[in-house]
């Protein structure tokens, strides 16, 4: 059964005023458990509004959201529980840190869940390790840390709730390439270790292509498609028209196709491209098998 499912999900801002705007328009989607979903769409496409529905921060104007088969708004009192099961890391999450030690900040979520001290302690230490924070950092003030470290503390704070679905809104915004790779690597590792569902919102097609098993594309408040990277990047022309980019490597192979060299597959990572080219060279007898 799908872990997350929406049914005719629609959300309208400032309903009944002249500023009325439908940010999410009749979205129907089913996300399977354990999927690593890349969420893309330009600013204002409705992707941020959509993800805030998944953990009940926003209540749909119309339609329903099911978590593991259960309507999350069936019982309003239960909504806080939903937020523990669907963790959401906002953009620039380091700006939400407030405790005097890293340890206590990571423990904030688990504590709100009402877990025992021992359980909290275990979770804090496990997640800190998972995002590459050493034991000594735990006793420091989060405000002494570097930008990249702060970001990882904030992500750990949500991971420590051990949500069944982890949603990250542009977790690498503003970081340098090194910091970006580190965080994305850790998220990938978390996904592999826990088998939980991960949703990654990103502007970088390169990153989405590298990590995601499924891609969700939002365009003008509607769901444009939800499919495998292969199938999504096959529609690179439409995606470019939306004002989004496809990875540079995809553009290279699209060009090759136009020039008559069709490698008969959609290329979206460098690794895959290398394999494809060498195979082709082998076929053409240019290099040894």
């Amino acid at each position: 059964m799908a872990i997350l499912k929406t049914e005719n999900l629609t959300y309208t801002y400032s309903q009944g005023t002249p500023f009325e705007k439908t940010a999410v328009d009749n979205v129907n989607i089913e996300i399977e458990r354990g999927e690593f979903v890349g969420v893309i769409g330009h600013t204002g496409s409705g992707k941020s509004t959509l993800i805030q529905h998944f953990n009940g921060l926003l209540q749909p104007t119309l339609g329903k959201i099911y978590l593991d088969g259960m309507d999350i708004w069936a019982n309003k009192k239960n909504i806080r529980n939903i937020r523990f099961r669907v963790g959401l890391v906002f953009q620039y999450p380091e700006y939400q840190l407030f405790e005097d030690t890293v340890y206590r900040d990571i423990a904030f979520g688990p504590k709100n869940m009402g877990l025992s001290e021992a359980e909290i302690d275990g979770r804090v230490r496990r997640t800190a390790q998972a995002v590459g924070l050493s034991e000594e950092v735990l006793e420091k003030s989060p405000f002494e840390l570097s930008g990249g470290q702060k970001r990882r503390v904030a992500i750990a704070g949500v991971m420590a709730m051990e949500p069944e679905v982890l949603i990250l809104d542009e977790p690498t915004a503003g970081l340098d390439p090194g910091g970006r790779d580190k965080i994305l690597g850790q998220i990938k590792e978390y996904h592999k270790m826990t088998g939980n569902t991960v949703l990654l919102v990103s502007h970088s097609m390169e990153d989405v292509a590298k990590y995601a098993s499924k891609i969700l594309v939002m365009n003008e408040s509607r769901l444009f498609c939800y499919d495998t990277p292969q199938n999504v990047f096959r529609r690179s022309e439409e995606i470019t028209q939306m004002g989004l980019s496809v990875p540079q490597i995809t553009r290279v192979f699209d060009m090759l196709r136009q020039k008559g060299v069709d490698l008969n597959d959609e290329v979206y990572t460098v690794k895959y491209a290398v394999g494809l080219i060498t195979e082709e060279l082998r076929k053409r007898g240019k290099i040894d098998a």
Partner: protein
Amino acid sequence: MLKDITIGQYFPGDSFVHRIDPRFKIIITIVFIAMLFIGSSPVCLEVGAVFCLMSIILSKIPFKMILKSLKPIVMILAVTSVLNLFLITGGEPYFEWKFIKITDQGVYTSVFMIIRIILLIAGTSLLTYTTSPIALTDAIERLLSPLKVFKLPVHDLAMMMTIALRFVPTLIEETEKIMSAQKARGADLDGGSIKDKVKSVIPIIIPLFISAVRRAGELATAMECRCYNGGNGRTKMRQLKCSPSDFTALGLSLLFMIAVIYVNIAQ
């Protein structure tokens, strides 16, 4: 929800009222407030109401907007009118039951106060509806500039006001973001007891404060890069020029004022 707070909300337009020099507009508003407070009889309030209504019509601000500005003071109105109603016990009683006594004077005073407060708020919000925040600070700076003689840092005060106005929307947006982020971590923001409420504010106030300090630091550097040096030798792109119609408006408001004073004395 925080977005409902309107602070100095400007409603752009090109009406007669919009075009009055902001300095004059501030003075006229002060005259109007004085009018309301000097006036001690219903006739005075009628004069004030006519003046206010006339300005609203001239400003072409939709009446709905004026009503909206009155929304936040409904509670204050209710409390003052209830207090007046029950605490003023002089005059003819309309209704008496145990210790509760409602008299004609009580009713009169509470209606009088309600109208006075409504006019006060309607008049001042008309000022902020028709004057952009920047014109307002500009005008205040210029009106206060004679006070520089007494070493009052007029420019700095005006600068602070501008920056505060500039950052209000930014900080409101930021507060909403932090609130959502903490809610996503299970923070219970509508928690029960007062102690819980105070505790639940900490995860919002601290990040907000830290962010405001960081913003201030960055803004200061950016201002330095643009050769900011306090008010020394500073000029202004926007020049305020008063026109005959500004004097007409001021004269008109003074006429109303004289009418109010006259009614007061005549009684």
